[in-house]
């Protein structure tokens, strides 16, 4: 055995193996390499002859037949492509509606209008956007707008077919809110300091508040503009306002407002506008 490993045979074997490995690397990395080209040239004639000898002549078709078949295939392809587009649209619509199905089940009094974000206002750093539903779909100014996981904004302008949404990241927003765990109340309003990070603020908290990180903030429903108990986000930080000595909490919405695509407008809900009516009646 020892002699075998010292014999010229093993040296030849190892040399051949080395060359093979090099050739393997070469033929794998170089397209149209000499070795493959030579092999293909050598076997081309042979393959042609054997393929011709075994070919099934029933597949031979005239030019006109092929042309006709090609036209038929093109038409079928066009039809299938159009069906595929329809399929994707229906699938997307289905996903969008399913998203709000649970919400509707939970709050039967809500009238939901599913909508899609048409465009985003690039000049607004607070994430405002335009949706594809307007007054024709019963959308009106002031209606709350839901994302997949909670309230994300409200309708500020409504045209016939589109509407503009101001988000809860904007300082224009003012929503009465409450900490579900402690019952501390405040106002949700956006801040230029936090908006870039998809954060908003729960301001006007009393100095005795017991808010803690991780608490869930919901709408209080006190104004009659937003339904009671809609999730707004989670407390991530508690701060102190140096101007008016009040405290505030930084709230992170559960939706990424800058990327949200599918929303729902709540055009009607139980108790909508009741407080406003009372106030105007007084």
């Amino acid at each position, binding site marked *: 055995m020892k002699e075998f490993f010292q014999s010229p045979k093993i040296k030849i074997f190892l040399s051949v193996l080395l060359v093979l490995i090099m050739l*393997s690397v070469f033929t794998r990395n170089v397209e149209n390499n000499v070795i493959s080209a030579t092999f293909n040239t050598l076997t081309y004639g042979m393959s042609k002859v054997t393929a011709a000898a075994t070919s099934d002549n029933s597949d031979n078709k005239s030019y006109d037949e092929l042309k006709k078949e090609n036209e038929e295939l093109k038409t079928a392809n066009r039809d299938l492509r159009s069906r595929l587009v329809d399929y994707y649209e229906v699938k997307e619509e289905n996903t969008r509606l399913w998203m709000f199905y649970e919400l509707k089940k939970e709050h039967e009094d809500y009238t939901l209008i599913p909508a899609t974000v048409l465009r985003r206002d690039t000049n607004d750093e607070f994430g405002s956007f335009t949706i594809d539903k307007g007054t024709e779909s019963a959308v009106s100014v002031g209606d709350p707008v839901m994302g997949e996981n909670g309230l994300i904004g409200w309708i500020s302008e409504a045209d016939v077919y589109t509407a503009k949404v101001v988000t809860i990241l904007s300082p224009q927003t003012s929503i009465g809110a409450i900490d579900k765990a402690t019952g501390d109340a405040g106002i949700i309003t956006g801040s230029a300091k936090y908006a870039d990070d998809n954060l908003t603020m729960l301001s006007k908290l009393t100095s005795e508040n017991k808010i803690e990180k991780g608490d869930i903030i919901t709408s209080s429903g006190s104004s009659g503009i937003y339904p009671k108990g809609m999730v707004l986000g989670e407390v991530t930080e508690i701060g102190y306002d140096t101007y008016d000595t009040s405290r505030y909490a930084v709230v992170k919405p559960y939706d990424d407002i800058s990327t949200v695509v599918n929303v729902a407008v709540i055009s009607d809900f139980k108790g909508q506008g009741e407080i406003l009516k009372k106030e105007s009646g007084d």
Partner: protein
Amino acid sequence: MSERSNSFFRYLAYVIELILTFILCTTPGLLPEIFGAKPALVVCVALTVAVFEREIPAMIIGLLAGILTDLGYTDSIGIFAISLTIICFIVGYAANNLIVAKFFNYLLYAFVAVGLLFMIYFLVIFVIPGTEHMWDYFVAHIVSRMVQTFLFSIPFYFINHFIYSTLSPEAG
């Protein structure tokens, strides 16, 4: 015939065998698929030659068979060329020095060599890249190809045994 001419015609016969089996395997519609695969006839030739010849001629036939198999399918020298070169060299050495290649011993060689060859192929092409549903492919195609290659190598054993005994150096 002289010893030299015997050797020449013997090797020529092997090369013709390789070319014919390559044509049989690669020509569309010539060999039917059985259970999702065709036998690798070129491998059958290489293995049966390897049990009769010494290490270096066995290695060269394995090398040629491997290159034909690789270039015939993938346009690059690779797994079959390297594996068959190694396997044929080892079979050539073992058949001459360890276990003499009588028919039943040949079955043992063929069983181990064919199994090893296709397991290396499966490992490199399917397992290492993590191909999805690789075991389905293994059951549906690789096992069938291994079994067929093993079985088809039996007639080649007798053909090459005849060629070797007729055109061996001793016969001259």
